[in-house]
């Protein structure tokens, strides 16, 4: 599905990775590992087309993601460091807008998704009154709405408690079972039920 060819990237005169190639298949979970500053976030941003400071190619179903922009983004759900949650909008309004932006999010399930991330009863409160962790969870509620086959998640488990993490792991397992694939970074030890997690260590990618 997602194919990375010969990726080269340097930042601040430091080579982050060189000749990096891999293929992400259907029903696969790929965890990107590496020390702080090893370029995990940069790599994820490149894969999403949010960075062009690289050489090489990112292909989605054999087509360059720049050229096949619409199809690729239709299939992509990206959760980055920044939640994209507006403080002046309520949780419900935020998610409604996100589902306008990304038609693969199912708008009907918004109340249900908010309940699942533990924000039941907070639907119509402006998000700036929520705590940072709660705001992040508003963004994560997208995972419950999404039917996109490819998830790219950057540190999705920060600001989650143990129970929350376990729930997300179940969610990831379901997504993979349904034929989706996931690339993620996390400091957390992943344990996905019935699924082996492939790892890619960026510290090794440097030769």
């Amino acid at each position, binding site marked *: 599905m997602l194919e990375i060819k010969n990726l080269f990237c340097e930042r601040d005169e430091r080579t982050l990775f060189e000749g990096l190639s891999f293929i992400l298949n259907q029903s696969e979970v790929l965890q990107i590992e590496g020390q702080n500053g090893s370029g995990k976030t940069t790599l994820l941003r490149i894969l999403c087309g949010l960075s062009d400071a690289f050489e090489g190619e990112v292909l989605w179903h054999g087509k360059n993601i720049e050229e096949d922009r619409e199809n690729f983004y239709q299939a992509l759900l990206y959760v980055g460091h*920044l939640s*994209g949650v507006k*403080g002046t909008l309520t949780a419900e309004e935020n998610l409604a807008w*996100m589902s306008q932006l990304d038609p693969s999010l199912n708008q009907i399930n918004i109340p249900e998704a908010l309940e699942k991330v533990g924000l039941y009863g907070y639907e119509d409160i402006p998000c700036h009154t929520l705590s940072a962790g709660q705001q992040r969870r508003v963004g994560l509620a997208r995972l419950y709405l999404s039917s996109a086959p490819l998830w790219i998640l950057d540190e999705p488990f920060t600001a989650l408690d143990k129970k929350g993490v376990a729930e997300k792991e179940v969610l990831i397992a379901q997504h993979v079972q349904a034929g989706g694939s996931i690339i993620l970074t996390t400091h957390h030890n992943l344990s996905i039920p019935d699924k082996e997690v492939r790892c890619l260590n960026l510290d090794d990618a440097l030769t």
Partner: protein
Amino acid sequence: MNFFLAALRRDLLLTFRRRNDIINPLAFFLMVGILFPLGVSPEASFLSQLAPGVIWVAALLASLLSVDGIFRSDFDDGSLEHMLVSPQPLLLLVLAKVTNHWLISGFCLALVSPILALMLFLPSEGIKPLIFSLLLGTPTLSLIGAIGAALTVGLRKGGILISLLVLPLYIPVLIFGASSVQAGSIGLPIQGYLALLAAMLALSLVLAPFAIVAALKISVRS
């Protein structure tokens, strides 16, 4: 089209939740206009000559003042990233944002401009040209300003830089806008000026969104 409306609705909602965004440009517009009689001369005949230019300059500055905010908060909280990884056409999204900016700056300014016109003794024949020229000219200002905003949104000191980038490009609009009011207030026909303002609006409407999208991509990807 549906998406354009949805995006516009969201932006309007955001603006109305923070009323300052609407009031600030208007207050600024009136304040700048008031500074002139205080700073130069309160004499009616003199002010009425100055009025077209002063009102237009004040409107231009008020529009510029708020243009930096078009993308800033979306950039800071990550909404802009969401927009870039969305399959929806960015051009429509950008147009919605510019429309929102115009509604809270140019459109409102045109509506309150008669107040300033009265205070600066603009001849009453000039008021209609003033409103029309502002309505036709300020969307161009918003479009050009949005290019500057998109180019500087990723920079920490973008706010100061943006006026340097954008003001030279505002000059034609200022010239034709102020001239139309001047012509109108001495009873000359103004259709020609308005046609030129409309032509500039058409041109910027066609070209500016592409520049804005390109600039936003550069800003987010850097």
